[in-house]
């Protein structure tokens, strides 16, 4: 029986604000899960803390709503112990790029096979609209009493420098496109980062849906709004490193594209590179049967609750009279 997006819904009341971009992301995740036909019990959605952090409660798979900023290590721990699980980590931009940015960078160095989605809304939603790390310097959203004094982080470039091997950006209100990106990110072997432009109608009155759609930015000739968002795939851009030699060339492209903002904001896949060994391959060099017999599958008990571990050799080495 084919799974439908509805099969991934829960009955939990969703209390996001009306019009919040989070709804689009939620739908896209559910659609992607259905398209990927992942049995509900085989997936685990991990999240941080924030409005975004509530996501797992709305998805009918295993759902782990962790701590502020810690979603990546929680998620990695589960994936490492049970590589058979499909692990998706989600969270806010404050969560992932503020308090959690250390884990963001460090996770890049591992390339564990999971997908991380950041709901990029420029604000700390759940704590009432303080500036998040992606808000540009000098911006003053309606929730701020003063313009933002910090420079913004460039999450695409940061993911790239950190070592993520799949990097893309989606838009919360372009659900189909976002769904496609999630499907690709999940299918990617290695650590995937997905930056999602997520309007927060309650606190961010700058990067609004209208703004992304360019309603303030009309074509002088025909008076039509010029959408700020455009799709990389439609612009001839290709960020896939098929051959390791292409790395530097593509790197500079990624960097350039990641800096586009303002009147032209790219969405789509910035970078993909499957030439980098994923972490399970690296573990396999140390523990050859890791994938076949990972921690979660290991039989630690023999019968009668006796241990299945044989430490005789080790004990022998401690023997006084060996």
């Amino acid at each position: 029986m084919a799974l439908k997006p509805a099969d991934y819904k829960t009955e939990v009341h969703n209390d996001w604000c009306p019009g919040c971009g989070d709804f689009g992301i939620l739908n896209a995740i559910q659609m992607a899960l259905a398209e990927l036909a992942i049995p509900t019990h085989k997936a685990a959605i991990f999240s941080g803390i924030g409005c975004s952090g509530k996501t797992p409660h709305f998805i009918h798979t295993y759902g782990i709503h962790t701590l502020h900023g810690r979603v990546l290590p929680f998620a990695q721990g589960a994936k490492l112990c049970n590589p058979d699980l499909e692990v998706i980590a989600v969270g806010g931009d404050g969560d992932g790029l503020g308090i959690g940015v250390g884990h963001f960078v460090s996770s890049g160095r591992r390339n564990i096979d999971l997908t991380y989605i950041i709901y990029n809304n420029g604000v700390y939603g759940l704590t009432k609209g303080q500036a998040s790390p992606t808000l540009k310097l000098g911006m003053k959203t309606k929730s701020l009493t003063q313009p933002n004094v910090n420079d913004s982080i460039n999450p695409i470039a940061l993911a790239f420098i950190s070592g993520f091997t799949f990097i893309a950006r989606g838009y919360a209100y372009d659900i189909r496109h976002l769904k496609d990106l999630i499907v690709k990110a999940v299918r990617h072997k290695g650590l995937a980062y997905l930056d999602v432009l997520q309007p927060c109608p309650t606190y961010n009155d700058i990067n609004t849906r209208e703004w992304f759609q360019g309603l303030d930015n009309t074509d002088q000739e025909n008076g039509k709004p010029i959408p700020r968002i455009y799709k990389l795939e439609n612009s001839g851009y290709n960020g896939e490193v098929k051959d390791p030699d292409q790395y530097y060339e593509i790197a500079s492209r990624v960097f350039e594209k990641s800096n586009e903002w303002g009147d032209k904001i790219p969405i789509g896949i910035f970078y993909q590179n499957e030439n980098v060994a994923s972490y399970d391959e690296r573990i396999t060099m140390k523990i050859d049967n890791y994938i076949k017999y990972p921690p979660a599958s290991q039989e630690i008990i023999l019968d009668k609750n006796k241990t299945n571990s044989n430490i005789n050799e080790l004990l022998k080495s401690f023997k006084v009279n060996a």
Partner: protein
Amino acid sequence: MHDKIVNEITWVIGGAQGSGVDSAANIFSKTCAEDGLYIFGKREYYSNIKGEHSYFTVRVSNKPIRSHKESIDILVSFDAETLFRHAKDVSTNGIIIFNSELIETSINEIPTLDPDVQNTITEYCNYSGGDPITIKKLLEKIQQNSIKCYGIPYHQLLKNFSEHTNNPALSKLARMINVLALSISLSFINIDRQALSRAIKYIFRTKPKIAEINVAAAEYAYNYAEQIFQNNKFTFSKNKMDFSDIILVQGSQSSALGKIVAGCRFQTYYPITPASEDSEFLETNQVIEQIDGNKGSVLVMQTEDEISAITMAIGGALTGTRTATATSGPGFSLMAEALGWAGINEVPLVVSLYQRAGPSTGLPTRHEQGDLLFAINAGHGEFPRIVFASGDIEESFYDTLKVFNFAEIFQLPVIHLLDKAIASSVMTCKNFDPNKISIDRGYLIKKINNKTKDQDKLKHFKRFELQKNTAISPRPPLGTENGIFWNTGDEHDEEGHISEDPTVRIKMMDKRMSKLNLVLQEIQDEDKALSYNENSDIVITSWGSTKGAILDTLDELNKEGIKIKFVQIKLLNPFPQQLLEKLLNSAKTIINIEMNYSSQLAKLIKQNLQRDIDYEIVKYNGRPISCDELYRVIKGIVNNNVEKRRIVLDYGT
């Protein structure tokens, strides 16, 4: 020439960090143990990589021992600092082996000796000459106490050896001086020479060439010493006992060994002294022989910090894997927040907390039991946890099996308290029995019956089911069919969804917190507290690694006909109040002993038993309690010679 018949000796070797002190001590310990003698060894070192003073005390005895003594029978040195620091502790009739080439070295030539310490030593020597004192002067003073000092021209000896073996390169191998010194020291003990060669081969087992040269050098030095000194030897009244079932284990490895047996298959860590060695042992032995013939493994992850270490371990635990993280104070401080997440989500997790001297960075390589109350209270808000302390190396192995059971039976985080004293000591123990404690995974369910027609029930699995009779709910690993649940750090309902309802809140708090009573009901008394020497109205209370010094002191006192009871508390949270009331029932005098400033256990006793402590013995200079200093104080108390109720021990170098 006649031998000195002894029951035990204390042997100390010192030298700069990196100069081979540890391997010499390990060879020595192994040699004596091979000859059927009990060993207790203890390592002291600076937070430094090379150059600062480190030393290793090995106590050897013909009966079981569990602690060190201050007074030294044989002091082995090859640098000047060791002499300046330790010579004063050599006991009457003891011997000192030193580098005769350094005889003119004066104290102010040693940059690693603090001016304060220089003064203390100068004072000790009663020296009032204007110049800084020299080794020569020091030894003159020392010899007044019938101590024999044997000067060795180490470099000359090395040179001779290199000529002897026709290998001139060796003469520059200063690193081998430790083996020369050690070997010479062994010539003063009546012991099987062959054991020495075997021990050297064992210690250098991965480098056979080096082993071979060292064996030759040891032989050479031994012969040299026997010829030159014609010394009378320490001879044990009894040795060559049957040690076929005895192992010599280091405290940083015993709990790690226990983890392998317990089925811990994922350990995370961030490097920190003295906890890293636990993880390093696991990593070195990551592939595990299984009895069923398969090859298991323990995946060891070095994370970016301790927050990641604990949260990754929790993530792993959710998959049904037994997971742990090992750390020390600073790292544990960073884990406080996530501990609460494990608490509210009822995740079984083991944290091996190797205590060291705090606060803050403190004395990173020194010993203390300063984290007890922090472990009990770490993390904001209220959630159940077990805090469990091991008293020695052997206990730490079996306790490790137990803490994993506790974590899973009660579904909560367990903090396993260990410390630097245990980690840095080495001891002869009865061989560990991996089958003594069986594995109990509690209410872990790997399969969920889907035969029920009740679709609603299937869709709504209750991970946090509120049941009448028990606080423990079914726990499926992530990935289990029909077991979908949610976790959140927020208060939640039975499925794990956020709830702010005041009634749900009370029910869930009651569910979780009631586990503390459950723990007290279910855990056996022997695991709560151990009691030694019944029927005495003087009772010592303590916890953790002070155990060794206390038991050794009690043995001494027993010999004198003084009987004192000792209650070693292992389960520190929840506090076994009832059992303790029973155990302390008849106590007229309670003496509480701890390696910290504020008598943290005493606070717990006062709080839970509402009774006062008569004497609080504390030590917080970073050096473990020796059995001789403890003996003196306890004896004083018994004899009513101790006035203060708070006694601060301060022995140690």
